C-alpha cells in the first residue's frame, strides 16, 4: 500500500463527511463561515493525528475488553490539551467554536479511525491515516463553510463581496442541512460513487 494512497484515501475514497457521513454535528454546527469550518477541521485533525499515533503504539498492551474506554480516555486527554492551548493562544477561535471543542471527544470520526485503523496498523501508517482523514474533514468543512458564508452573508473568508444580508436561512440550521445535501450530491457526481 503506497503511503500517499493512505492520505488520498482519507480525502476522496473514504471522505469522512461526504462518503462515510460521520461527525455530522460539528460539520453542520460550526460551518457558518469558511474560517470557522476550517478552524474546526484543523482542531479535529490535531486530535485525530495524535490519538491515532498514541493508540496505534499502545494498542498491543491494551486488553481487548477495556479497549474502548482506554481509547476514550486518550482522545479526551488530547481534546482537553487542545482546549487549553486554544484558550491560551487563540481565544477568539476557542470562543466561536464553543461547545463543539469538547464534543470532538464524541466525534465518531476520531473513535472510528482508532477502532477501524489505528489499532491494527503501524504508528507511521496510522499517523498518515490521521492526516488524510483530517484533511478530508477539513476540506469538506471549509467548502461547506464557504458555500454557507457566500449565500448567507455574501462574503468569502470574511471578505464582503455583496452588500446587504444575503439569504439568512443559509447561516441558520435549515440552510446547513440543505447545503450539505447538495454538496454531497455534487461530490457523488464528480467521483462517480454511490452511497
Amino acid at each position, binding site marked *: 500500500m503506497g503511503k500517499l494512497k493512505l492520505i488520498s484515501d482519507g480525502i476522496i475514497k473514504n471522505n469522512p463527511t461526504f462518503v462515510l457521513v460521520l461527525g455530522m454535528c460539528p460539520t453542520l454546527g460550526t460551518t*457558518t*463561515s469558511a474560517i*470557522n469550518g476550517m478552524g474546526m477541521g484543523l482542531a479535529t485533525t490535531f486530535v485525530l493525528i495524535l490519538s491515532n499515533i498514541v493508540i496505534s503504539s*499502545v*494498542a*498491543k*498492551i*491494551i*486488553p*481487548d*475488553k*477495556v*479497549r474502548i*474506554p*482506554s481509547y476514550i*480516555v*486518550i482522545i*479526551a*486527554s488530547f481534546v*482537553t*490539551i487542545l482546549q*487549553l*492551548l486554544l*484558550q*491560551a*493562544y487563540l*481565544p477568539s477561535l476557542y*470562543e*466561536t467554536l*464553543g461547545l463543539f471543542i469538547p464534543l470532538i471527544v464524541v466525534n465518531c470520526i476520531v473513535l472510528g479511525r482508532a477502532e477501524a485503523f489505528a*489499532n*491494527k496498523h503501524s504508528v507511521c501508517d496510522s499517523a498518515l491515516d490521521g492526516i488524510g482523514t483530517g484533511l478530508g474533514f477539513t476540506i469538506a468543512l471549509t467548502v461547506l463553510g464557504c458555500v454557507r458564508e457566500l449565500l*448567507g*452573508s455574501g462574503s468569502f473568508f470574511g471578505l464582503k463581496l455583496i452588500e446587504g*444580508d444575503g439569504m*439568512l436561512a443559509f*447561516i*441558520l440550521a435549515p440552510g446547513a442541512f440543505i447545503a450539505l445535501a447538495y454538496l454531497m450530491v455534487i461530490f457523488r457526481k464528480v467521483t462517480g460513487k454511490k452511497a
Partner: protein
Amino acid sequence: MASKSNFTNMVVVLTSICLVCAAILGFVYSVTAEPIRQAEVAKINNAIASVVPEFNNNPSEEVFEVDGAQVYPAKMDTTVVGYAVKIKTSSFGGPMQMMVGFDNAGNIYNTSVISHADTPGLGAKMTDNNIKLRTELVGINPASVNLSVKKDGGDIDAITAATITSRSFLKGVDLAYQVFLKVQSQN
C-alpha cells in the same frame, strides 16, 4: 493484536492510562494557566480601551464592584475621564458579557461585546463596531432616549432578524447606566 483480557491486566492498564493522561493534563494546565490568564486580561483591557476616552492609568488595577458589576475608572493624570462598566447578562444563545463606557457627563462613549453565544451571522453581528444598534448609541445620554428597540416603541434600530439580541443588548446598556448613576452619586 490486543492481549487477552483478565481482571488484573484490565485494571492495571486502565488505571495506568488514566494516571498518565492525568499527569500530562496537569502539566499542560500548569503551562497554559498563565497565558490563559493573560489572554483574558488582555481582552478586558482592550474592551476598556475601546469604550472610554483616552487614559493613562491602569483601570484593571483600580476596579471596584457595584451591584455585581465591575466598574473600571479611566483616569488621565489622576482626573477621572470616564468609567467602563462590565455587565454580565444573558441573551438569545446564552450568557453574554459586555462593556459600556461613559464619560463624566453620563453620555455613552462607546460599547463593546466581550463574549456572547448568539447565532453567528445574526445575533453575533452585535460584535460589529459599525452596526447601527451600536453606532446610534455613541455620544447619547441614556436618560434622554427610550432605550429599547423601535418594535417595542423605543428609539433604537434593532439588528435585522435579531430582535431578541438587540433587546438584551439594550437592557445590558441600561443596567450599565444604572450602575454608572450609582457610582456618580457616591462621588
